Protein backbone atom coordinates (compact mmCIF):
# COMPACT_ATOMS: atom_id res chain seq x y z
CA UNK A 1 0.00 0.00 0.00
CA UNK A 2 2.91 2.29 0.80
CA UNK A 3 4.44 1.62 -2.59
CA UNK A 4 1.08 2.23 -4.23
CA UNK A 5 0.92 5.64 -2.57
CA UNK A 6 4.44 6.51 -3.66
CA UNK A 7 3.66 5.46 -7.21
CA UNK A 8 0.55 7.63 -7.28
CA UNK A 9 2.57 10.54 -5.91
CA UNK A 10 5.28 10.05 -8.55
CA UNK A 11 2.66 9.96 -11.30
CA UNK A 12 1.18 13.22 -10.04
CA UNK A 13 4.67 14.73 -10.10
CA UNK A 14 5.16 13.58 -13.70
CA UNK A 15 1.87 14.99 -14.94
CA UNK A 16 1.92 18.22 -12.90
CA UNK A 17 4.29 20.22 -15.18
CA UNK A 18 1.98 19.76 -18.16
CA UNK A 19 -1.01 21.11 -16.26
CA UNK A 20 1.03 23.92 -14.68
CA UNK A 21 2.48 25.01 -18.04
CA UNK A 22 -0.88 25.01 -19.76
CA UNK A 23 -2.56 26.89 -16.90
CA UNK A 24 0.26 29.46 -16.83
CA UNK A 25 0.06 30.10 -20.57
CA UNK A 26 -3.71 30.49 -20.45
CA UNK A 27 -3.48 32.94 -17.56
CA UNK A 28 -0.67 35.01 -19.05
CA UNK A 29 -1.19 34.62 -22.78
CA UNK A 30 -4.90 34.38 -23.44
CA UNK A 31 -5.38 38.13 -23.00
CA UNK A 32 -3.06 38.85 -25.91
CA UNK A 33 -4.87 36.56 -28.34
CA UNK A 34 -7.09 38.91 -30.33
CA UNK A 35 -7.51 40.04 -33.92
CA UNK A 36 -4.27 42.04 -33.85
CA UNK A 37 -2.44 38.94 -32.73
CA UNK A 38 -3.28 37.20 -36.01
CA UNK A 39 -3.05 40.18 -38.37
CA UNK A 40 -0.21 42.42 -37.18
CA UNK A 41 3.54 42.05 -36.84
CA UNK A 42 5.32 42.60 -33.51
CA UNK A 43 5.58 46.22 -32.46
CA UNK A 44 9.12 47.65 -32.33
CA UNK A 45 10.87 46.93 -29.02
CA UNK A 46 9.55 49.10 -26.21
CA UNK A 47 6.26 49.88 -27.92
CA UNK A 48 2.94 48.17 -27.24
CA UNK A 49 0.57 46.27 -29.48
CA UNK A 50 1.23 44.15 -32.49
CA UNK A 51 0.85 40.45 -33.20
CA UNK A 52 2.58 37.46 -34.63
CA UNK A 53 1.20 37.37 -38.18
CA UNK A 54 4.74 37.17 -39.57
CA UNK A 55 5.50 34.12 -37.43
CA UNK A 56 2.22 32.31 -38.09
CA UNK A 57 2.55 32.73 -41.87
CA UNK A 58 6.23 31.79 -41.79
CA UNK A 59 5.56 28.66 -39.78
CA UNK A 60 2.77 27.57 -42.12
CA UNK A 61 4.88 28.15 -45.22
CA UNK A 62 8.02 26.45 -43.91
CA UNK A 63 6.05 23.48 -42.57
CA UNK A 64 4.36 23.07 -45.96
CA UNK A 65 7.73 23.03 -47.72
CA UNK A 66 9.24 20.71 -45.13
CA UNK A 67 6.32 18.30 -45.55
CA UNK A 68 7.04 17.90 -49.27
CA UNK A 69 10.51 16.60 -48.45
CA UNK A 70 9.46 14.78 -45.31
CA UNK A 71 6.53 12.97 -46.93
CA UNK A 72 8.19 12.16 -50.25
CA UNK A 73 11.38 10.75 -48.75
CA UNK A 74 9.76 9.44 -45.58
CA UNK A 75 6.97 7.46 -47.28
CA UNK A 76 9.40 6.12 -49.91
CA UNK A 77 11.77 5.08 -47.17
CA UNK A 78 8.94 3.34 -45.33
CA UNK A 79 7.87 1.52 -48.52
CA UNK A 80 11.47 0.48 -49.13
CA UNK A 81 11.93 -0.91 -45.63
CA UNK A 82 8.60 -2.73 -45.58
CA UNK A 83 8.23 -3.97 -49.18
CA UNK A 84 11.86 -4.76 -50.02
CA UNK A 85 13.03 -6.48 -46.83
CA UNK A 86 15.56 -8.64 -48.69
CA UNK A 87 17.22 -5.78 -50.54
CA UNK A 88 20.95 -5.63 -49.67
CA UNK A 89 20.72 -1.90 -48.81
CA UNK A 90 17.74 -2.35 -46.50
CA UNK A 91 19.68 -2.81 -43.21
CA UNK A 92 21.76 0.31 -43.96
CA UNK A 93 18.73 2.49 -44.69
CA UNK A 94 16.94 1.19 -41.60
CA UNK A 95 19.89 1.79 -39.31
CA UNK A 96 20.64 5.26 -40.66
CA UNK A 97 17.02 6.38 -40.44
CA UNK A 98 16.89 5.16 -36.84
CA UNK A 99 20.08 6.98 -35.96
CA UNK A 100 19.04 10.13 -37.85
CA UNK A 101 15.90 10.30 -35.70
CA UNK A 102 18.11 10.91 -32.68
CA UNK A 103 20.38 13.62 -34.07
CA UNK A 104 19.73 16.83 -32.12
CA UNK A 105 17.68 19.36 -34.06
CA UNK A 106 20.28 22.09 -33.58
CA UNK A 107 22.90 19.93 -35.30
CA UNK A 108 20.55 19.58 -38.28
CA UNK A 109 20.36 23.37 -38.23
CA UNK A 110 24.15 23.53 -38.53
CA UNK A 111 24.02 21.14 -41.48
CA UNK A 112 21.33 23.16 -43.28
CA UNK A 113 23.38 26.29 -42.55
CA UNK A 114 26.40 24.75 -44.29
CA UNK A 115 24.37 23.46 -47.22
CA UNK A 116 22.23 26.54 -47.97
CA UNK A 117 22.99 29.59 -45.87
CA UNK A 118 26.73 29.68 -46.62
CA UNK A 119 25.92 29.97 -50.35
CA UNK A 120 22.59 31.80 -50.44
CA UNK A 121 22.17 33.51 -47.09
CA UNK A 122 19.43 33.08 -44.47
CA UNK A 123 16.17 31.93 -46.03
CA UNK A 124 12.86 30.18 -45.49
CA UNK A 125 14.19 27.43 -47.77
CA UNK A 126 17.07 26.72 -45.41
CA UNK A 127 14.69 26.55 -42.44
CA UNK A 128 12.30 24.28 -44.33
CA UNK A 129 15.19 22.01 -45.32
CA UNK A 130 16.27 21.62 -41.70
CA UNK A 131 12.68 20.86 -40.63
CA UNK A 132 12.31 18.41 -43.54
CA UNK A 133 15.46 16.57 -42.44
CA UNK A 134 13.89 16.24 -39.00
CA UNK A 135 10.57 14.96 -40.38
CA UNK A 136 12.02 12.28 -42.65
CA UNK A 137 13.04 9.65 -40.10
CA UNK A 138 9.77 9.99 -38.14
CA UNK A 139 7.68 9.44 -41.27
CA UNK A 140 9.90 6.50 -42.34
CA UNK A 141 9.32 4.73 -39.03
CA UNK A 142 5.55 5.17 -38.89
CA UNK A 143 5.08 4.34 -42.58
CA UNK A 144 7.09 1.14 -42.19
CA UNK A 145 5.10 0.13 -39.11
CA UNK A 146 1.68 0.63 -40.70
CA UNK A 147 2.68 -0.99 -44.00
CA UNK A 148 3.73 -4.06 -42.05
CA UNK A 149 0.24 -4.21 -40.55
CA UNK A 150 -1.25 -4.74 -44.04
CA UNK A 151 -1.78 -8.52 -44.25
CA UNK A 152 0.53 -10.42 -46.54
CA UNK A 153 -2.49 -12.13 -48.10
CA UNK A 154 -3.66 -8.80 -49.55
CA UNK A 155 -0.38 -8.45 -51.45
CA UNK A 156 -0.55 -12.06 -52.57
CA UNK A 157 -4.11 -11.62 -53.81
CA UNK A 158 -3.00 -8.67 -55.92
CA UNK A 159 -0.02 -10.51 -57.34
CA UNK A 160 -2.17 -13.55 -58.05
CA UNK A 161 -4.39 -11.37 -60.21
CA UNK A 162 -1.33 -10.73 -62.34
CA UNK A 163 -0.76 -7.19 -61.14
CA UNK A 164 2.88 -6.11 -61.05
CA UNK A 165 4.38 -5.43 -57.66
CA UNK A 166 4.49 -1.66 -58.13
CA UNK A 167 0.75 -1.52 -58.84
CA UNK A 168 0.04 -3.74 -55.87
CA UNK A 169 2.12 -1.44 -53.69
CA UNK A 170 0.66 1.83 -54.98
CA UNK A 171 -2.97 0.83 -55.52
CA UNK A 172 -3.59 -1.79 -52.84
CA UNK A 173 -1.04 -1.67 -50.02
CA UNK A 174 -0.62 2.11 -49.71
CA UNK A 175 -4.37 2.92 -49.71
CA UNK A 176 -4.93 0.22 -47.08
CA UNK A 177 -2.37 1.93 -44.85
CA UNK A 178 -3.22 5.53 -45.80
CA UNK A 179 -4.85 6.37 -42.47
CA UNK A 180 -1.82 5.29 -40.50
CA UNK A 181 0.55 7.14 -42.80
CA UNK A 182 -1.45 10.37 -42.46
CA UNK A 183 -1.30 9.92 -38.67
CA UNK A 184 2.47 9.53 -38.87
CA UNK A 185 2.84 12.65 -40.98
CA UNK A 186 0.67 14.65 -38.59
CA UNK A 187 2.75 13.51 -35.61
CA UNK A 188 5.93 14.43 -37.46
CA UNK A 189 4.48 17.86 -38.25
CA UNK A 190 3.47 18.37 -34.63
CA UNK A 191 6.98 17.45 -33.59
CA UNK A 192 8.86 19.83 -35.91
CA UNK A 193 6.33 22.69 -35.68
CA UNK A 194 7.71 23.46 -32.22
CA UNK A 195 11.39 23.37 -33.16
CA UNK A 196 13.14 26.70 -32.87
CA UNK A 197 16.74 25.54 -32.54
CA UNK A 198 17.31 24.54 -36.19
CA UNK A 199 15.70 27.80 -37.37
CA UNK A 200 17.97 30.11 -35.36
CA UNK A 201 20.56 30.33 -38.10
CA UNK A 202 18.66 29.07 -41.12
CA UNK A 203 15.32 30.90 -41.37
CA UNK A 204 16.79 33.43 -38.92
CA UNK A 205 13.53 35.29 -38.31
CA UNK A 206 11.98 38.38 -39.84
CA UNK A 207 10.05 41.11 -38.10
CA UNK A 208 8.05 41.86 -41.25
CA UNK A 209 5.61 39.61 -43.09
CA UNK A 210 7.57 37.75 -45.74
CA UNK A 211 6.20 35.10 -48.06
CA UNK A 212 9.30 34.83 -50.26
CA UNK A 213 11.10 31.65 -49.20
CA UNK A 214 14.44 32.89 -50.50
CA UNK A 215 14.48 35.59 -47.80
CA UNK A 216 14.77 35.33 -44.01
CA UNK A 217 11.50 34.20 -42.49
CA UNK A 218 9.98 34.09 -39.03
CA UNK A 219 8.30 31.19 -37.27
CA UNK A 220 6.22 30.81 -34.11
CA UNK A 221 8.91 29.04 -32.04
CA UNK A 222 11.45 31.66 -33.11
CA UNK A 223 9.23 34.53 -31.96
CA UNK A 224 8.54 32.72 -28.69
CA UNK A 225 12.28 32.40 -28.14
CA UNK A 226 12.98 36.05 -29.00
CA UNK A 227 10.08 37.29 -26.89
CA UNK A 228 10.85 35.12 -23.88
CA UNK A 229 14.46 36.30 -23.79
CA UNK A 230 13.51 39.92 -24.43
CA UNK A 231 13.56 42.49 -21.65
CA UNK A 232 10.31 44.12 -22.77
CA UNK A 233 6.96 43.18 -21.18
CA UNK A 234 5.11 43.54 -24.46
CA UNK A 235 7.40 41.09 -26.28
CA UNK A 236 7.13 38.66 -23.38
CA UNK A 237 3.35 38.89 -23.50
CA UNK A 238 3.34 38.14 -27.24
CA UNK A 239 5.70 35.21 -26.63
CA UNK A 240 3.33 33.74 -24.04
CA UNK A 241 0.36 34.15 -26.37
CA UNK A 242 2.38 32.57 -29.17
CA UNK A 243 3.33 29.68 -26.90
CA UNK A 244 -0.33 29.18 -26.00
CA UNK A 245 -1.29 29.08 -29.69
CA UNK A 246 1.56 26.73 -30.60
CA UNK A 247 0.98 24.32 -27.75
CA UNK A 248 -2.78 24.24 -28.42
CA UNK A 249 -2.23 23.47 -32.11
CA UNK A 250 0.33 20.77 -31.30
CA UNK A 251 -1.89 19.14 -28.69
CA UNK A 252 -4.88 19.16 -31.02
CA UNK A 253 -2.83 17.65 -33.84
CA UNK A 254 -1.41 14.88 -31.67
CA UNK A 255 -4.76 14.09 -30.10
CA UNK A 256 -6.50 13.95 -33.48
CA UNK A 257 -3.72 11.81 -34.92
CA UNK A 258 -3.79 9.40 -32.01
CA UNK A 259 -7.56 9.16 -32.00
CA UNK A 260 -7.56 8.42 -35.75
CA UNK A 261 -4.94 5.70 -35.36
CA UNK A 262 -6.67 4.16 -32.35
CA UNK A 263 -9.96 3.79 -34.17
CA UNK A 264 -8.34 1.59 -36.84
Amino acid at each position, binding site marked *: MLMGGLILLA*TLLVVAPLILIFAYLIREGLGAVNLDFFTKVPAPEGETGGGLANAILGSVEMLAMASVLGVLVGVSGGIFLSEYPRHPLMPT*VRMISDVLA*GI*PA*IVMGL*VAYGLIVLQFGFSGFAGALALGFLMMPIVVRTTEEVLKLVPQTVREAGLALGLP*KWLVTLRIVLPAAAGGIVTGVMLALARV*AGEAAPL*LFTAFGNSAINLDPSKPMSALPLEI*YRGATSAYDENQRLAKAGALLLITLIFLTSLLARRASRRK
Partner: protein
Amino acid sequence: MSEPTQSRPNRLPAPASLSSRSDRLFEILILTLASVIVLVFALSIYQLGTESWPALKRFGLDFFTQRTWNPVQGSYGAVAMITGTLVTSLVALAISVPLAIASALFVAEYAPRWLANPVGYLIELLAAVPSVVYGLWALFVIAPVLSRWEQGFFQAPEKIALYTACKNLWDSGSTTLQCFFVPSSFDGRGLALAIIILTVMILPYTASVARDVIRLVPQDQREAMYALGATKWEVISRAILPYARAGIMGGVILALGRALGETLAVAMVIGDSQDALKSLFGGASTMASVIANQFGDAQEALHRSSVVTLGLTLFFLSVIVNYVARLIIGRLTPKGIQ
Protein backbone atom coordinates in the same frame (compact mmCIF):
# COMPACT_ATOMS: atom_id res chain seq x y z
CA MET B 1 3.00 3.97 -67.77
CA SER B 2 1.67 1.18 -69.97
CA GLU B 3 -0.44 -1.65 -68.70
CA PRO B 4 2.16 -4.36 -68.46
CA THR B 5 0.11 -7.56 -68.24
CA GLN B 6 0.93 -9.92 -71.06
CA SER B 7 -0.80 -13.24 -71.41
CA ARG B 8 1.18 -16.20 -72.53
CA PRO B 9 -1.39 -18.97 -72.50
CA ASN B 10 0.80 -21.89 -73.47
CA ARG B 11 3.54 -21.48 -70.96
CA LEU B 12 3.34 -21.05 -67.23
CA PRO B 13 4.55 -17.48 -66.65
CA ALA B 14 7.31 -17.12 -64.13
CA PRO B 15 5.88 -14.48 -61.72
CA ALA B 16 9.19 -12.65 -61.47
CA SER B 17 9.35 -11.97 -65.18
CA LEU B 18 5.84 -10.53 -65.35
CA SER B 19 6.11 -6.83 -66.03
CA SER B 20 9.60 -6.92 -64.63
CA ARG B 21 10.61 -3.68 -66.32
CA SER B 22 8.04 -1.44 -64.63
CA ASP B 23 8.75 -3.18 -61.32
CA ARG B 24 12.41 -2.53 -61.79
CA LEU B 25 11.74 1.18 -62.50
CA PHE B 26 9.55 1.47 -59.41
CA GLU B 27 12.17 -0.20 -57.27
CA ILE B 28 14.84 2.19 -58.53
CA LEU B 29 12.57 5.20 -57.87
CA ILE B 30 11.77 4.08 -54.34
CA LEU B 31 15.39 3.23 -53.64
CA THR B 32 16.55 6.60 -54.94
CA LEU B 33 14.12 8.51 -52.75
CA ALA B 34 14.91 6.29 -49.76
CA SER B 35 18.64 6.85 -50.21
CA VAL B 36 18.11 10.56 -49.63
CA ILE B 37 18.14 9.52 -45.96
CA VAL B 38 21.57 7.98 -46.36
CA LEU B 39 22.66 11.01 -48.37
CA VAL B 40 21.55 13.44 -45.65
CA PHE B 41 23.49 11.42 -43.10
CA ALA B 42 26.63 11.41 -45.27
CA LEU B 43 26.25 15.11 -46.10
CA SER B 44 25.91 15.91 -42.41
CA ILE B 45 29.19 14.18 -41.59
CA TYR B 46 30.91 15.85 -44.54
CA GLN B 47 29.52 19.29 -43.77
CA LEU B 48 30.25 19.18 -40.04
CA GLY B 49 33.62 17.56 -40.71
CA THR B 50 34.91 20.17 -43.17
CA GLU B 51 33.69 23.06 -41.06
CA SER B 52 35.25 21.60 -37.91
CA TRP B 53 38.55 20.97 -39.61
CA PRO B 54 40.20 24.37 -38.93
CA ALA B 55 39.53 24.08 -35.18
CA LEU B 56 40.54 20.44 -35.03
CA LYS B 57 43.75 21.15 -36.98
CA ARG B 58 44.62 24.07 -34.72
CA PHE B 59 43.86 22.44 -31.36
CA GLY B 60 43.86 18.71 -32.04
CA LEU B 61 42.82 16.64 -29.05
CA ASP B 62 43.52 19.65 -26.81
CA PHE B 63 40.09 20.84 -27.90
CA PHE B 64 38.59 18.16 -25.68
CA THR B 65 40.97 18.58 -22.74
CA GLN B 66 41.46 22.35 -22.46
CA ARG B 67 39.35 24.29 -20.00
CA THR B 68 39.44 27.80 -21.45
CA TRP B 69 36.84 28.84 -23.99
CA ASN B 70 37.69 32.42 -24.73
CA PRO B 71 36.79 34.05 -28.05
CA VAL B 72 38.78 37.16 -27.14
CA GLN B 73 42.02 35.26 -26.71
CA GLY B 74 41.13 32.89 -29.54
CA SER B 75 41.58 29.79 -27.40
CA TYR B 76 38.92 27.13 -27.45
CA GLY B 77 38.72 24.12 -25.16
CA ALA B 78 35.46 22.26 -24.70
CA VAL B 79 35.91 20.75 -21.24
CA ALA B 80 33.31 23.06 -19.67
CA MET B 81 30.65 22.26 -22.28
CA ILE B 82 31.34 18.55 -22.31
CA THR B 83 31.13 18.30 -18.51
CA GLY B 84 28.10 20.60 -18.56
CA THR B 85 26.36 18.34 -21.07
CA LEU B 86 27.21 15.16 -19.18
CA VAL B 87 26.38 16.51 -15.72
CA THR B 88 23.00 18.01 -16.71
CA SER B 89 22.00 14.91 -18.69
CA LEU B 90 23.10 12.30 -16.17
CA VAL B 91 21.68 14.06 -13.11
CA ALA B 92 18.39 14.73 -14.92
CA LEU B 93 18.33 11.07 -15.90
CA ALA B 94 18.99 9.93 -12.34
CA ILE B 95 16.05 11.99 -11.05
CA SER B 96 13.65 11.22 -13.86
CA VAL B 97 14.11 7.45 -14.21
CA PRO B 98 12.50 6.42 -10.89
CA LEU B 99 9.64 8.86 -11.48
CA ALA B 100 9.16 7.62 -15.03
CA ILE B 101 9.14 3.95 -13.99
CA ALA B 102 6.70 4.70 -11.20
CA SER B 103 4.32 6.49 -13.55
CA ALA B 104 4.64 3.62 -16.05
CA LEU B 105 3.74 1.15 -13.28
CA PHE B 106 0.80 3.32 -12.36
CA VAL B 107 -0.53 3.35 -15.92
CA ALA B 108 0.17 -0.32 -16.62
CA GLU B 109 -0.50 -1.97 -13.26
CA TYR B 110 -2.31 0.20 -10.73
CA ALA B 111 -4.73 2.54 -12.44
CA PRO B 112 -8.21 1.42 -13.46
CA ARG B 113 -8.73 1.55 -17.20
CA TRP B 114 -10.76 4.78 -17.17
CA LEU B 115 -7.86 6.53 -15.49
CA ALA B 116 -4.95 4.75 -17.18
CA ASN B 117 -5.75 5.97 -20.67
CA PRO B 118 -6.06 9.69 -19.89
CA VAL B 119 -2.93 9.62 -17.74
CA GLY B 120 -1.06 7.83 -20.51
CA TYR B 121 -2.31 10.53 -22.91
CA LEU B 122 -1.11 13.33 -20.64
CA ILE B 123 2.35 11.78 -20.39
CA GLU B 124 2.54 11.53 -24.17
CA LEU B 125 1.49 15.19 -24.48
CA LEU B 126 4.35 16.08 -22.16
CA ALA B 127 6.67 14.83 -24.90
CA ALA B 128 4.92 17.07 -27.43
CA VAL B 129 5.55 20.35 -25.59
CA PRO B 130 8.19 22.27 -27.59
CA SER B 131 11.57 22.88 -26.03
CA VAL B 132 11.17 26.64 -26.32
CA VAL B 133 7.90 26.55 -24.35
CA TYR B 134 9.60 24.59 -21.55
CA GLY B 135 12.31 27.23 -21.61
CA LEU B 136 9.81 30.07 -21.38
CA TRP B 137 8.03 28.43 -18.45
CA ALA B 138 11.27 27.69 -16.60
CA LEU B 139 12.43 31.26 -17.13
CA PHE B 140 9.22 32.94 -15.96
CA VAL B 141 7.97 30.51 -13.31
CA ILE B 142 10.79 28.45 -11.79
CA ALA B 143 13.68 30.91 -12.10
CA PRO B 144 12.05 33.53 -9.82
CA VAL B 145 11.53 30.87 -7.13
CA LEU B 146 15.16 29.78 -7.33
CA SER B 147 16.27 33.38 -7.42
CA ARG B 148 14.44 34.17 -4.16
CA TRP B 149 16.12 31.19 -2.50
CA GLU B 150 19.54 32.24 -3.81
CA GLN B 151 19.16 35.74 -2.46
CA GLY B 152 17.77 34.46 0.84
CA PHE B 153 20.86 32.29 1.21
CA PHE B 154 22.88 35.35 2.14
CA GLN B 155 20.73 36.61 5.01
CA ALA B 156 23.29 35.36 7.54
CA PRO B 157 26.70 37.11 7.75
CA GLU B 158 28.68 33.85 7.86
CA LYS B 159 27.16 32.89 4.50
CA ILE B 160 28.53 36.10 3.02
CA ALA B 161 31.97 35.17 4.34
CA LEU B 162 31.57 31.74 2.78
CA TYR B 163 30.60 33.33 -0.52
CA THR B 164 33.66 35.60 -0.44
CA ALA B 165 35.93 32.63 0.21
CA CYS B 166 34.33 30.69 -2.62
CA LYS B 167 34.49 33.67 -4.96
CA ASN B 168 38.25 33.79 -4.47
CA LEU B 169 38.51 30.10 -5.19
CA TRP B 170 36.36 30.37 -8.32
CA ASP B 171 38.37 33.32 -9.61
CA SER B 172 41.58 31.35 -9.20
CA GLY B 173 40.04 28.54 -11.24
CA SER B 174 39.47 26.02 -8.46
CA THR B 175 36.62 25.10 -6.18
CA THR B 176 35.63 22.86 -3.29
CA LEU B 177 32.68 20.54 -2.79
CA GLN B 178 31.14 22.97 -0.31
CA CYS B 179 31.46 25.88 -2.73
CA PHE B 180 29.63 23.83 -5.36
CA PHE B 181 26.45 24.41 -3.37
CA VAL B 182 27.01 28.14 -2.85
CA PRO B 183 25.03 30.29 -5.32
CA SER B 184 27.22 32.23 -7.74
CA SER B 185 24.46 33.94 -9.68
CA PHE B 186 21.28 35.34 -8.24
CA ASP B 187 18.78 35.43 -11.07
CA GLY B 188 17.79 31.77 -10.73
CA ARG B 189 19.44 30.76 -13.97
CA GLY B 190 22.13 28.15 -13.90
CA LEU B 191 22.98 24.50 -13.73
CA ALA B 192 20.24 23.61 -11.22
CA LEU B 193 17.46 25.12 -13.35
CA ALA B 194 18.77 23.36 -16.46
CA ILE B 195 18.71 20.05 -14.60
CA ILE B 196 15.17 20.64 -13.35
CA ILE B 197 13.77 21.44 -16.79
CA LEU B 198 15.69 18.59 -18.46
CA THR B 199 14.28 16.18 -15.88
CA VAL B 200 10.75 17.16 -16.84
CA MET B 201 11.51 17.07 -20.56
CA ILE B 202 12.94 13.54 -20.68
CA LEU B 203 10.41 11.96 -18.30
CA PRO B 204 7.89 11.01 -21.00
CA TYR B 205 10.44 9.14 -23.14
CA THR B 206 11.42 6.70 -20.41
CA ALA B 207 7.85 6.55 -19.14
CA SER B 208 6.27 5.52 -22.42
CA VAL B 209 8.91 2.91 -23.30
CA ALA B 210 8.71 1.52 -19.75
CA ARG B 211 4.91 1.37 -19.92
CA ASP B 212 5.04 -0.54 -23.22
CA VAL B 213 7.54 -3.14 -22.02
CA ILE B 214 5.72 -3.59 -18.71
CA ARG B 215 2.56 -4.33 -20.68
CA LEU B 216 4.49 -6.96 -22.64
CA VAL B 217 5.27 -8.95 -19.49
CA PRO B 218 3.26 -12.17 -19.87
CA GLN B 219 0.15 -12.44 -17.72
CA ASP B 220 1.21 -15.94 -16.49
CA GLN B 221 4.17 -14.36 -14.81
CA ARG B 222 1.88 -12.23 -12.65
CA GLU B 223 -0.67 -14.92 -11.99
CA ALA B 224 1.95 -17.43 -10.88
CA MET B 225 3.21 -14.98 -8.26
CA TYR B 226 -0.27 -14.08 -7.06
CA ALA B 227 -1.09 -17.79 -6.80
CA LEU B 228 1.84 -18.10 -4.40
CA GLY B 229 0.26 -15.41 -2.26
CA ALA B 230 2.50 -12.53 -3.26
CA THR B 231 1.42 -8.93 -2.68
CA LYS B 232 1.07 -6.49 -5.54
CA TRP B 233 4.43 -4.89 -4.82
CA GLU B 234 6.13 -8.28 -4.59
CA VAL B 235 4.73 -9.18 -8.00
CA ILE B 236 6.02 -5.90 -9.43
CA SER B 237 9.46 -6.05 -7.87
CA ARG B 238 10.13 -9.77 -8.39
CA ALA B 239 8.20 -10.70 -11.52
CA ILE B 240 7.56 -7.60 -13.59
CA LEU B 241 10.51 -5.26 -13.20
CA PRO B 242 13.23 -7.92 -13.64
CA TYR B 243 11.44 -9.14 -16.77
CA ALA B 244 11.11 -5.63 -18.19
CA ARG B 245 14.51 -4.40 -17.00
CA ALA B 246 16.39 -4.57 -20.27
CA GLY B 247 13.58 -2.87 -22.19
CA ILE B 248 13.39 -0.08 -19.63
CA MET B 249 17.16 0.31 -20.01
CA GLY B 250 16.62 0.93 -23.73
CA GLY B 251 14.11 3.66 -22.89
CA VAL B 252 16.52 5.21 -20.41
CA ILE B 253 19.27 5.41 -23.04
CA LEU B 254 16.82 6.92 -25.51
CA ALA B 255 16.00 9.59 -22.93
CA LEU B 256 19.73 10.16 -22.42
CA GLY B 257 20.06 10.80 -26.16
CA ARG B 258 17.30 13.41 -25.90
CA ALA B 259 18.90 15.06 -22.89
CA LEU B 260 22.32 15.34 -24.52
CA GLY B 261 20.92 17.19 -27.53
CA GLU B 262 18.20 19.26 -25.84
CA THR B 263 18.91 22.80 -26.87
CA LEU B 264 16.71 25.82 -26.44
CA ALA B 265 15.16 25.15 -23.06
CA VAL B 266 18.65 24.58 -21.68
CA ALA B 267 20.19 27.49 -23.58
CA MET B 268 17.56 29.85 -22.16
CA VAL B 269 18.01 28.88 -18.52
CA ILE B 270 21.58 27.66 -17.99
CA GLY B 271 23.15 31.12 -17.81
CA ASP B 272 25.64 30.63 -20.66
CA SER B 273 28.90 30.69 -18.73
CA GLN B 274 31.94 28.97 -20.20
CA ASP B 275 33.85 28.70 -16.94
CA ALA B 276 34.16 25.06 -16.02
CA LEU B 277 31.42 24.07 -13.57
CA LYS B 278 31.86 25.87 -10.31
CA SER B 279 28.47 26.13 -8.69
CA LEU B 280 25.21 24.24 -8.90
CA PHE B 281 23.41 27.59 -8.60
CA GLY B 282 25.41 29.49 -11.16
CA GLY B 283 25.94 29.77 -14.88
CA ALA B 284 27.19 26.84 -16.95
CA SER B 285 26.80 25.67 -20.53
CA THR B 286 26.26 22.55 -22.61
CA MET B 287 27.49 21.81 -26.12
CA ALA B 288 24.01 22.41 -27.54
CA SER B 289 23.49 25.63 -25.58
CA VAL B 290 26.80 27.06 -26.81
CA ILE B 291 25.85 26.29 -30.41
CA ALA B 292 22.52 28.06 -29.94
CA ASN B 293 23.95 31.04 -28.08
CA GLN B 294 27.19 31.64 -29.97
CA PHE B 295 27.02 30.33 -33.53
CA GLY B 296 25.01 33.29 -34.79
CA ASP B 297 27.41 35.84 -33.29
CA ALA B 298 30.65 34.05 -34.08
CA GLN B 299 32.45 36.40 -36.45
CA GLU B 300 35.92 34.95 -36.32
CA ALA B 301 36.54 31.80 -38.42
CA LEU B 302 38.18 29.87 -35.60
CA HIS B 303 35.30 30.62 -33.23
CA ARG B 304 32.79 29.39 -35.83
CA SER B 305 34.78 26.28 -36.50
CA SER B 306 35.08 25.54 -32.79
CA VAL B 307 31.32 25.84 -32.36
CA VAL B 308 30.76 23.48 -35.30
CA THR B 309 33.23 21.04 -33.70
CA LEU B 310 30.90 20.96 -30.70
CA GLY B 311 28.12 20.09 -33.16
CA LEU B 312 30.21 17.30 -34.66
CA THR B 313 30.93 15.92 -31.19
CA LEU B 314 27.24 16.06 -30.33
CA PHE B 315 26.44 14.35 -33.63
CA PHE B 316 28.67 11.36 -32.93
CA LEU B 317 27.61 11.20 -29.29
CA SER B 318 23.93 10.96 -30.28
CA VAL B 319 24.65 8.45 -33.05
CA ILE B 320 26.32 6.15 -30.53
CA VAL B 321 23.70 6.62 -27.81
CA ASN B 322 20.77 6.09 -30.17
CA TYR B 323 22.40 3.11 -31.82
CA VAL B 324 22.87 1.43 -28.46
CA ALA B 325 19.29 2.24 -27.42
CA ARG B 326 17.84 0.82 -30.65
CA LEU B 327 20.01 -2.25 -30.32
CA ILE B 328 18.68 -2.93 -26.84
CA ILE B 329 15.05 -2.19 -27.67
CA GLY B 330 15.20 -3.99 -31.02
CA ARG B 331 16.66 -7.12 -29.50
CA LEU B 332 14.12 -7.27 -26.71
CA THR B 333 10.84 -6.56 -28.33
CA PRO B 334 10.14 -8.52 -31.48
CA LYS B 335 7.07 -6.41 -32.27
CA GLY B 336 9.04 -3.17 -32.46
CA ILE B 337 8.33 -0.59 -29.82
CA GLN B 338 9.35 2.89 -30.83
